[in-house]
């Protein structure tokens, strides 16, 4: 199949299905905790390609490369900081090979995760170092055959800015999602609405923005509602976890069933998302159920939170938009 540009495919289709989890599926395939999944691009390319292949067979229109921790600061934890180019080129090539093997367009999205550093002014990490690291990774992903740079699981404004600026230098379209996992906000305190607004002031305007990971499908839909309300013009991504992780007989199991994820996909569409996928715990089986659901679904009315809760599970008070009042302090004493 000849390659189609991501913006063209977006224009041609009402919705696109992104893939499911990478890390949690690799663990089912033999990855040991503590090992860098990115090394599988060289050590077990057949497994990396196999997961891509299964997601494509399940109906994915977009597959994310195995490069989430592929920036020099994450790779440094495995003493691989000098292999950024190798890792990302190999990751993109593995995905490209499977995308090109089917007779329908499949977009290769170059996954870019956070550095794990805390940016200035709160931390010590500089904007320039961030930009350089993200630029390095994005270039390699492009070189390996990525169609779009997919910046995900971001939590801070400063890192998001650096990531988009760095990634923009490779010239590919950019998608960026944040993880809203703390009281309806990101860990660094950004609300979905604030993210929507911030995304209009980045180095380039992203082709799509949205939410990934977080704390379960219901809560993710609540954050998607926040983003689509603030930015009705934006292409919005919903890539939520497959329910909640539970501990059973010594193993972690995600609570989401294929039926739940199918319903999550329908509600995501009704909430205004146009790119739907799964994050942690989402297997190819879950994704196949989501594809079937999306094919059969006609976009319905924007759901109320009560309906989201009834169908997918509880949403935290703060994610419902019931923000707590700031502390009432007597500010007359100073300044």
């Amino acid at each position, binding site marked *: 199949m000849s390659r189609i540009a991501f913006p063209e495919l977006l224009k041609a289709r009402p919705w696109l299905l992104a893939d499911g989890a990478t*890390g*949690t599926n690799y*663990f089912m395939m033999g990855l*040991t*905790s*503590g090992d860098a999944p990115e090394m599988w691009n060289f050590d077990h390319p057949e497994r990396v390609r196999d997961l891509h292949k299964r997601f494509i067979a399940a109906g994915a229109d977009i597959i994310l490369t195995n490069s989430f921790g592929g920036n020099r600061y994450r790779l440094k*934890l495995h003493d691989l900081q000098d292999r950024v180019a190798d890792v990302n080129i190999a990751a993109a090539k593995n995905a490209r090979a499977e995308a090109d093997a089917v007779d329908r367009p499949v977009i290769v999205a170059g996954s870019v995760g956070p550095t*794990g550093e*805390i940016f200035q002014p*709160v*931390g010590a990490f500089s904007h320039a170092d961030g930009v350089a690291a993200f630029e390095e990774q994005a270039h390699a992903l492009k070189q390996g055959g990525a169609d779009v740079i997919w910046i995900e699981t971001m*939590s*801070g404004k400063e890192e998001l800015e650096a990531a988009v600026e760095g990634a923009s230098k490779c010239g590919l379209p950019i998608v960026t999602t944040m993880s809203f*996992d*703390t*009281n*309806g*906000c*990101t*860990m*660094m*305190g950004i609300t979905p609405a604030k993210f929507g607004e911030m995304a209009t002031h980045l180095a380039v305007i992203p082709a799509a923005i949205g939410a990934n990971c977080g*704390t379960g499908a219901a809560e993710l839909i609540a954050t998607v509602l926040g983003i689509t309300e603030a930015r009705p013009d934006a292409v919005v991504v919903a890539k939520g976890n497959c329910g909640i*992780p*539970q*501990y059973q007989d*010594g*193993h*972690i199991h*995600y609570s989401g069933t294929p039926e739940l994820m199918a319903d999550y996909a329908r509600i995501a569409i009704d909430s205004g998302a146009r790119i739907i996928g799964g994050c*942690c715990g989402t297997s190819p089986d879950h994704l196949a159920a989501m594809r079937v659901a999306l094919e059969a679904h006609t976009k319905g009315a924007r759901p109320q939170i009560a309906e989201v809760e009834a169908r997918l599970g509880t949403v935290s008070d*703060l994610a419902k938009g019931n*923000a*707590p*009042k*700031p*502390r009432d*302090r007597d500010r007359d*004493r*100073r*300044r």
Partner: protein
Amino acid sequence: MSDAGDLDLNTLNDEELTQQVHDDLYDGLKEEVEAAVHILLGRGWTPYKVLTEALVEGMRIVGIDFRDGILFVPEVLLAANSMKAGMLILKPLLAETGAPRVGKMVIGTVKGDIHDIGKNLVGMMMEGAGFEVIDLGINNPVENYLAAIEEHQPDILGMSALLTTTMPYMKVVIDTLKEKGVRDDYVVLVGGAPLNEEFAKAIGADSYCRDAAVAVETAKSYMARKHNQLNA
């Protein structure tokens, strides 16, 4: 304190100045906190009183608002940095005066897990509450925990994991403590994004701490219980 409109901390009475330290911690104003600590010491406050009434109480308020979703990680990091600056002044004085010890904690991210932001936050908030914290860093096999509790004899052992694939390792550590017959010598607190209360119970930890503020409150309540038992 360079702006012309700045408040002169020296003009405040003790109560006002204590309030001001709480506010300055809340706002992450390091220099102001340092200045106030010096002033309070200069007025004859014991280092322990400055620690508990000005710094620890200020951080307690920060912790409450972090727990309630009013403050987030950036504000808490700035507050903790200011607290640390104040502590730096007090630390040698506290040692000299033989002030009571709040408690000691060994903390680390478990084997296979390289995430540390949450763990660092707990460490800082625990220091903010006056605890002595020994931070083992990331990716700790059970041997590291054993060696550290042997060396430091903490009251509390804290374990952190961000991954669903690494959190079961906490059970390995707890089971090893049981085997060695020392499990009950320590309060074991666990935390991390994918954990919950049921998990903590299932692996035999004392408590699950949803966030850094809860960790501090939980640690304090265990220390109070321990104190009461010793004095019973």
